[in-house]
């Protein structure tokens, strides 16, 4: 890995789209600066159990790409870092500030986690979507890259035990934020997406009723590095046997400012339902939906497969969720086919939350303004013939920064962005 201040391309975001774009350009000889705000590259995909519609292991697909990115001699990676003040001077001439935040642990860390054993502080583990605790010093997750611990200084008790026990002498509380001036010739925005916050729909009870979880919390329960010892209810550890999915939570809902379809929720819910039927063979799984959007290759067959396995699909709009004393949930919903309001009891409810734009990119530019579309994603100025182009010549967009899409489409989009960027670097785009 090279570390200088001159690069051919800046890739912002180390998720699947950013990695793909970086690798494509690095493989043809360009020097890439990849900047990731999180402690590890891998984006959201690295946290998934399996992918639809093939049910391939998500980690098995993403970790080789993560490793290839991390080891590529033409790619310099900065994690726990952000980009600010991007300035375009001329064509093929950009500069920016790279802000590297302190991790308080050096690259000498071996990831042994002895420090974690000793740390007395427990706070919610954001990499398990708050279902379980983590320490103030922690390796983010088992397949993190880099697999280096970090100290959550806001929650640190300053006891110094980690520094005392670290066999690699890797703890360094004297680290400070570093600012690097960097120059590059093109930019790829791959900042990804955020997930809808279901507390914005209080009638679903998320945050108040522990047995109402998000699909990402269920996803974590379905991976081998799950937060619990099996798929269990977060409230009382009971093994659920009657699980409901509420589709379109924060998608196609103008009342919460998210009018568009998130494109992935129908299929990830169908995937999770199938995985649940494998993990909990006695469980009933019901999916409440408005429309099933099974538009991709193999999606319709995947939906039919779930039906064949016994997943119940109810065309119904859930209006209210109430909690019973035993932790079960009562769902009040409109049965759209029968045209009547009904109530059903489930012991665990999964909210299939939608995708939102991650608008971090909008404040990164200094002397030029990046345009956003009506939904606050990066505006694709020539969506049909050059989908990676933005309003700034030399700045391209990859993956879900331009709109909701699934993993294969994100990778395709990253391919388009890297091809456009390579053309721009060669002087083909003016």
């Amino acid at each position, binding site marked *: 890995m090279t570390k200088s201040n001159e690069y051919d391309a800046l890739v912002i975001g180390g998720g699947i789209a950013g990695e793909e774009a970086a690798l494509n350009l690095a493989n043809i000889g360009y020097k890439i600066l990849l900047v990731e705000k999180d402690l590890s590259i891998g984006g959201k995909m690295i946290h998934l159990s399996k992918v639809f519609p093939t049910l391939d292991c998500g980690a098995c697909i993403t970790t080789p790409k993560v490793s290839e990115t991390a080891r590529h001699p033409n790619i310099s990676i900065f994690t726990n870092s952000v980009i600010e003040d991007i300035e375009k001077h001329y064509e093929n001439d950009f500069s920016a500030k790279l802000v590297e935040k302190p991790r308080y642990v050096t690259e000498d860390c071996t990831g042994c986690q002895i420090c974690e054993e000793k740390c007395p502080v427990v706070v919610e583990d954001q990499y398990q979507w708050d*279902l379980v*605790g983590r320490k103030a010093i922690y390796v983010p997750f088992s397949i993190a890259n880099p697999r280096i611990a970090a100290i959550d200084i806001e929650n*640190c008790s*300053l006891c110094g035990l980690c520094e005392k026990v670290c066999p690699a002498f890797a703890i360094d*509380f*004297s680290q400070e934020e570093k600012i690097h001036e960097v120059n590059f010739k093109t930019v790829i925005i791959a900042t990804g997406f955020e997930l809808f916050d279901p507390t914005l729909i209080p009638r679903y009870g998320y945050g108040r009723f522990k047995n109402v979880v998000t699909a990402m919390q269920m996803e974590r329960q379905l991976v081998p590095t799950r*937060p619990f*010892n099996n798929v269990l209810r977060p409230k*009382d*550890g009971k093994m659920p046997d009657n699980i409901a999915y509420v589709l379109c939570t924060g998608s196609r809902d103008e009342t919460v400012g998210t009018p568009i379809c998130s494109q992935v929720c129908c299929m990830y819910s169908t995937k999770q339902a199938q995985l649940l039927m494998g993990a909990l063979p006695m469980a009933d799984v019901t999916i409440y939906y408005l429309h099933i959007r099974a538009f991709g290759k193999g999606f319709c067959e995947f939906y039919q497969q779930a039906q064949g396995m016994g997943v119940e699909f109810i065309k119904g709009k859930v209006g209210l969720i109430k909690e019973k004393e035993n932790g079960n949930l009562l769902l009040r919903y409109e049965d759209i086919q029968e045209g009547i309001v009904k109530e059903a009891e489930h012991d665990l409810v999964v909210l299939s939350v939608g995708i939102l734009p991650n608008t971090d990119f909008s404040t990164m530019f200094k002397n030029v303004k990046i345009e956003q579309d009506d939904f606050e994603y990066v505006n694709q100025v020539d969506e049909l013939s050059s989908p990676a182009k933005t309003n700034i010549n030399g700045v391209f967009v990859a993956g879900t920064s331009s709109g909701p899409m699934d993993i294969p489409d994100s990778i395709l989009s990253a391919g388009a962005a890297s091809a456009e960027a390579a053309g721009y670097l060669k002087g083909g785009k003016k």
Partner: protein
Amino acid sequence: MKKTIDVMKEKRKVSESVRNSIKSFNKIKKLILKSLESEEKTIPELAKETNTDIETITYHLMTLLKYGFIEAGDMDDDDEYYYYKLKNKK
């Protein structure tokens, strides 16, 4: 040799919420581990015996499971709840 923690101690103080969080976790950790000394228990049994909110017991117990203090045993007769026991305790 001066430890780097001393550099940080000069720059910032530990917040009250961090202190309270450590106290709270340790208190519940002790309750759970003490309760499991006698025999393995389910989460509802632990909550009842320790007179602690069941959500709190679940969260802390799962954290103790993650850090290797306890392990999961068999399920109860109704196949609803797991029993949990101290690790290495047969």
